[in-house]
């Protein structure tokens, strides 16, 4: 089992390399930390004179940590309504509780989210591609994955396409609004307030709904 500190370092390395595009890292202040030794002993990193290199084994492990961290953030925001300001702090602790197996359940509960509340991508897991839903596990789900008559409130919108975002906002599909799915074939029909809208699958996949029973 990796120490918390080692995991943190591993995550920081991963973010800098995968998301900020750096090749290697200056060793700097962390030179003498025991966690660094722990990581290189496990074959996660390689250390030369001034730099740290993240190795394949380390990358795989780090991406899992990042996934758990960001899933934890989603869970805390979408389900537990934790205030934005303390999200980071709480999720750091929370992610360590989400070990394998549990992590996929959380991902399913949240509707296999693609980004964290800050908009950073969440690495996908096995559960995201398999998609064998256990109905009882749904808590937040994309509108496209709901069943007819499912009700809830829009939790957030997630689309890369700006004009799609604008379309959704202009028809009033905005976080907080209550929503009922009326039909899903041949198009998705939903009701908000007293109006009904028909949208295609693409738009329906951009709306994440927090379900109410």
């Amino acid at each position, binding site marked *: 089992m990796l120490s918390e500190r080692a995991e943190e370092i591993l995550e920081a390395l991963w973010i800098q390399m995968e998301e900020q595009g750096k090749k290697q890292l200056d060793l700097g202040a962390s030179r003498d930390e025991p966690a660094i030794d722990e990581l290189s002993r496990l074959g996660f990193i390689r250390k030369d004179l001034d730099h740290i290199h993240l190795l394949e084994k380390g990358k795989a492990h780090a991406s899992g940590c990042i996934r758990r961290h960001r899933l934890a953030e989603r869970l805390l925001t979408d389900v537990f309504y934790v205030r934005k300001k303390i999200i980071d702090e709480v999720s750091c602790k929370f992610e360590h509780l989400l070990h394998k197996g549990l992590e996929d359940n959380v991902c399913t509960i949240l509707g296999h989210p693609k980004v964290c509340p800050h908009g950073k991508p969440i690495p996908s897991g096995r559960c995201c591609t398999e998609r064998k839903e256990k109905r009882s596990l749904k808590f937040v789900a994309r509108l496209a994955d709901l069943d007819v008559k499912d009700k809830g409130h829009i939790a957030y919108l997630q689309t890369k396409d700006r004009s799609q975002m604008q379309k959704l906002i202009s028809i*009033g599909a905005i976080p907080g609004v209550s929503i009922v799915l009326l039909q899903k074939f041949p198009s998705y029909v939903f009701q908000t307030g007293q109006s009904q809208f028909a949208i295609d699958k693409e738009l329906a996949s951009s709306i994440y709904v927090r379900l109410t029973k």
Partner: protein
Amino acid sequence: MRKIAIVGSPNVGKSVMFNNLTGAYATVSNYPGTTVEVSRGKAKIGNEDFEIIDTPGMYSLLPISEEEKVSRDILLKEKPCAILHIVDAKNIERMLPLTLQLLEAGLPVILVLNIMDEAKRLGINIDVNSLEKELKISVVATVSTSGEGMDILRGKIEEHVRAFC
């Protein structure tokens, strides 16, 4: 001649309102996007003649389609002395953000809650005074297809013009 522009989301009865005010005829139907061209007509309200402009539907001040752009351009270029924002009374929550945007833009808005009959049938009760107080503008409830509330609307337009134009 002073101008009055009619704006609002698609399918809230803007064209019927235009027909009521001007006595002219702009095509009306039960689907969003019937009006693709701007209709203009004359209306006598109080003792003054106004040019009434009916615009294609718009959801927000940030246009997505060509028709929405047409509508915004009217607001920007023609400087109407009153803007009637027509909303579906059943769906005020969804349509109020446009009112707020128009107000943010500093435009002279009168809010018209149309299709009140359907709202009442659904058991929706709207306190017009409270809306007026919150928004600090005139608010009128109407049923454009039957003409209910049109006289009050004309009165509010007169007041508005006297106060601001």
